[in-house]
């Protein structure tokens, strides 16, 4: 499967982005803005980024554009709405005495090229109503669907399951 992946090479921007994320994580975990904590966090972020640099290939999938944060926020909103709907959906199926499920396995297609993008899409599919990602095979995702009408083909499954997420993810991941 390796040959299907096309992770773009990380650029200087990606290294800076990684440092910023690590630093932010440090500040959140430290829970304080004291100067010594900030300095320690900054040094750690730089060191970790430099040491992990050669293995940062996965971060090459991050799209560094001014609009990316907007897309990220929109994605988070869509995602949380889907997560809540997924839980109401589970509740409805579990509580109804007849257990209304019609499971099947379908494939969906993705246009995301990077590992990170495909992983986020697979994660999103798993946490949304009635679907569970089983495997990623190149640009196809194998999905277990709890309510699969007979004869669903690739295009229909893609439209129903992954398209809305993919549109948003493509705004900030490749």
């Amino acid at each position, binding site marked *: 499967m390796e040959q299907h992946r096309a992770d773009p090479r990380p650029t200087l921007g990606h290294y800076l982005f990684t440092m910023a994320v690590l630093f932010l*994580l440090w*500040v*959140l*975990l430290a*829970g304080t803005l004291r100067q010594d904590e900030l300095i320690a966090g900054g040094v750690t972020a730089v060191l970790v980024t430099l040491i992990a640099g050669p293995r940062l290939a996965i971060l090459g999938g991050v799209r560094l554009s001014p609009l990316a944060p907007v897309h990220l926020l929109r994605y988070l909103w869509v995602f949380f709405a889907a*997560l*809540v709907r*997924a*839980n109401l959906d*589970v*509740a409805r*199926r*579990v*509580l109804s005495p007849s*257990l209304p*499920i*019609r*499971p*099947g*396995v*379908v494939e969906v297609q993705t246009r995301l090229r990077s590992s990170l993008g495909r*992983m986020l899409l*697979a*994660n*999103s599919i*798993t*946490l949304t109503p*009635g*679907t*569970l*990602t*089983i*495997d990623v095979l190149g640009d196809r995702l*194998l999905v*277990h669907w*709890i309510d*699969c009408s*007979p*004869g*669903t083909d690739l295009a229909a499954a893609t439209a129903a399951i992954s398209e809305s997420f993919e549109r948003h993810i493509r705004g900030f991941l490749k």
Partner: protein
Amino acid sequence: MIRYIADLVLLAGAVFTLLGALGILRMPDVYNRIQAGTKASTLGAIGVLIGIGLLQPQWWAKLVCIAGFILFTSPVSSSTIARALYRSGVRPWQAAPGVADDRTGRG
């Protein structure tokens, strides 16, 4: 007032977790159980974290980190278990055996 909202959110988280447990008991096969368990435990945990955040506002930064890690890792573990099962030959349960079972095989 905020105390009641926090209690309500905590209760909602607990209820979703309970429903997930019920789903694990009631579903017919492992894939459907994973489905019910993953979604419910993720939102359940986040509900509990939000509730704690309302009760202890000074903890919000750490709670956001925990929520982020749960959101990112819980579906990964579920997908990994599902993939291991699928590759070792466990096929999904079908409502009507013999009907539309061309989708149970890979490809």
